């Protein structure tokens, strides 16, 4: 609370929100509640509708149908300048003819507030830019401009702060720093932050809740860890981190485990971690949950673990971990990350190896989807 005023923040509700561009729905019947005071990330590839959603909340785009409300207050028909919502634009959109002080004071002045100086100075203090007050935006670095954009929006004490790829224009190191900075500011002011990004790492670092969007719909919603550990769709499994997926068929199941047959190998999937309703099940496992063993170490595999044989085709040492690309007898390539905790004795290209993992890490997805199409999309978006 920058100005010490007691804030009564309320939830942001999107109900059946749809936006058509011609015949194509950019946002498709989206219903979502963003809890007050949370740091919420809309994550998705470009063109998934996340920015359109944000612009509709800001009032810069009119929804084709549906409603937007903050608490009980329906803001759907309000114009952008009438909404208690402010935006941090992708390329900051700072006013080049005004200095930093006037940029930050802009919203207050428009609302007819006379003595803006204490508030502006306090806000510049918060983003650590007080000495820059009389500079023009072009005289600031990218990171500083970014902070001005945040200050200019936050000073109005919006019910919701919208951030449109706010760190996209910054280099990696500065981005990390700003992620922490934004998180600090959010904790300090307690405003609801809705953050749009295509960068899954950025979303996971900052957000309390992530909504993964694809083709105008929300694929999965939850806190970063639960989405990562238990993806519910192939898209999420591939977009948020990496996954190894094997299409198979349910053989048998008890109250605990489902047995899935894929490419002639039996996999165990915990019943609670299966989102498939039918018998076509895609078995999924994250690369870092798997262990690589030499062929003759077969007896080291714990009983009940999922396992198969393969041949190492690529090894890349990445400091923290070693990444193996392993080709399986049915010509599928999988990725395995191994923590570099053991000195020496790393498998090398051409080695025949055993790969195994505990069934508790396995997840089951509804079958019938292509395993790779979404990966390609996600990779294209990440590039």
């Amino acid at each position, binding site marked *: 609370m920058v100005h010490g005023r007691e804030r009564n923040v309320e939830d942001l509700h999107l109900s059946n929100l749809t936006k058509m561009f011609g015949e194509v729905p950019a946002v498709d019947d989206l219903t979502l509640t963003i809890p007050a005071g949370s740091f919420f990330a809309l994550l998705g590839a470009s063109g998934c509708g996340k920015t359109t959603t944000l612009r509709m909340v*800001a*009032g*810069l785009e009119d929804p084709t149908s549906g409603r937007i409300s903050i608490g009980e207050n329906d803001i759907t028909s309000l*114009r*952008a*300048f*009438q909404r208690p*919502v*402010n*935006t941090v*634009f992708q*390329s900051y*959109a*700072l*006013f*080049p*003819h005004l200095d930093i002080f006037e940029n930050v004071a*802009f*919203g207050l002045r*428009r*609302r007819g507030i006379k003595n803006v100086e204490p508030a502006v100075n306090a806000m510049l203090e918060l983003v650590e830019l007080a000495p820059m007050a009389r500079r*023009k935006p*072009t005289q600031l670095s990218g990171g500083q401009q970014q902070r001005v954009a945040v200050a*200019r*929006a936050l000073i*109005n004490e919006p019910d919701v702060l919208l951030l449109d790829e706010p760190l996209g224009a910054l280099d990696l190191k500065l981005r990390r720093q700003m992620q922490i900075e934004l998180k600090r500011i959010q904790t300090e002011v307690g405003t609801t932050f809705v953050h749009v990004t295509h960068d899954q790492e950025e979303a996971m670092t900052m957000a309390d809740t992530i909504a993964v969007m694809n083709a105008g719909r929300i694929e999965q919603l939850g806190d970063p860890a639960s989405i990562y550990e238990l993806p519910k769709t192939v898209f999420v499994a591939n977009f948020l981190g990496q996954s190894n997926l094997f299409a198979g068929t349910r053989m048998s199941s008890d109250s605990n485990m489902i047995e899935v047959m894929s490419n002639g190998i039996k996999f165990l999937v915990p019943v609670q971690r299966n989102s498939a309703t039918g018998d076509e099940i895609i078995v999924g496992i994250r690369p870092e949950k798997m262990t690589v063993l030499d062929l003759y170490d077969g007896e080291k595999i714990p009983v009940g673990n999922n396992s198969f044989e393969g041949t190492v085709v690529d090894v890349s040492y990445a400091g923290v971990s070693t990444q193996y690309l392993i080709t399986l007898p049915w010509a599928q390539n999988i990725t395995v990350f191994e923590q570099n905790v053991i000195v020496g004795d790393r498998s090398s290209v051409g080695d025949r190896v055993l790969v195994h993992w505990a069934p508790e890490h396995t997840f089951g997805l509804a079958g019938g989807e292509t395993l790779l199409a979404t990966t390609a999309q996600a990779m294209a978006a990440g590039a």
Partner: protein
Amino acid sequence: MAAVLPSTKTTGVVVAQRKSRTGYFLLLPGMTWLAIFFAIPFVTLFLTSLQAPVEGQSGQYVPAFQISNYSDALLEYWPQFLRSFVYAGIATGFALLIAYPLAYFIAFKAGRWRALMLVLVIAPSFASFLLRTYAWKTILADEGFITSFFNFLNLLPDDRILNTGYAVVAGLTYNFLPFMILPLYAALEKIDPRLMEASNDLYASAFTTFRKVTWPLSLPGVVAGTLLTFIPAAGDYINAELLGSTQNRMIGNVIQTNFIEFRDYPTASALSFVLMAAILVLVFTYIRRAGTEDLV
């Protein structure tokens, strides 16, 4: 970096010097042109403006230092001076009023028609200036529909437009309109539409956004456009010649008649210099007031 590596610094200076010499080289054609066709005539004109007439021989003058040429010219022709600036000022004002919305539309709303509209703005220039002004004679003729229309509304004090100040101002406005539109368009087109969205997001209505964001950011275009319109309009004589009467003569007409008809070269030259000086003073005051040096 130069402080850490002195050798780099010296190399840098050499490169910079070579660069600046290349720069002067590029200036050469333009400078030569200006020297021959501007600087020399300028000096000649100035010397002419101080010449004294030869007694008994009209059109013959000898070098002198007759500063009274200036005061005489001003005393005799100050109404035409004043009229020139008033007409040019009004025409510039109208041009701005017409050009700004048009330029705004082309810059932000025209979409795929943008290129076509810009061509249409320039298209009239393909016909000669003189011809277009003659066309206005027809458009504003006493029997023409525009005059009839205004007469029907009883709006014309003299029952006509042609050969009045209205016609001259209309001609000036029309002829210099592209010089207003193009710089305005260039300035508006550079404005990032997201700035307007940001302003909208920060509680500014469409009108306030225009007042606080669009207009200030377009000021360089406004200044350039008004100067490019006002300066040639103030010195113009064709519009007053073709569309006005003897009551609407501008300083350009006076200079022209003094040169060509009266062969009073010193007076004509003196008037030219006064016009130049007056425009310079006006322009500098204007740029100061507009504060453009402070803009991006």
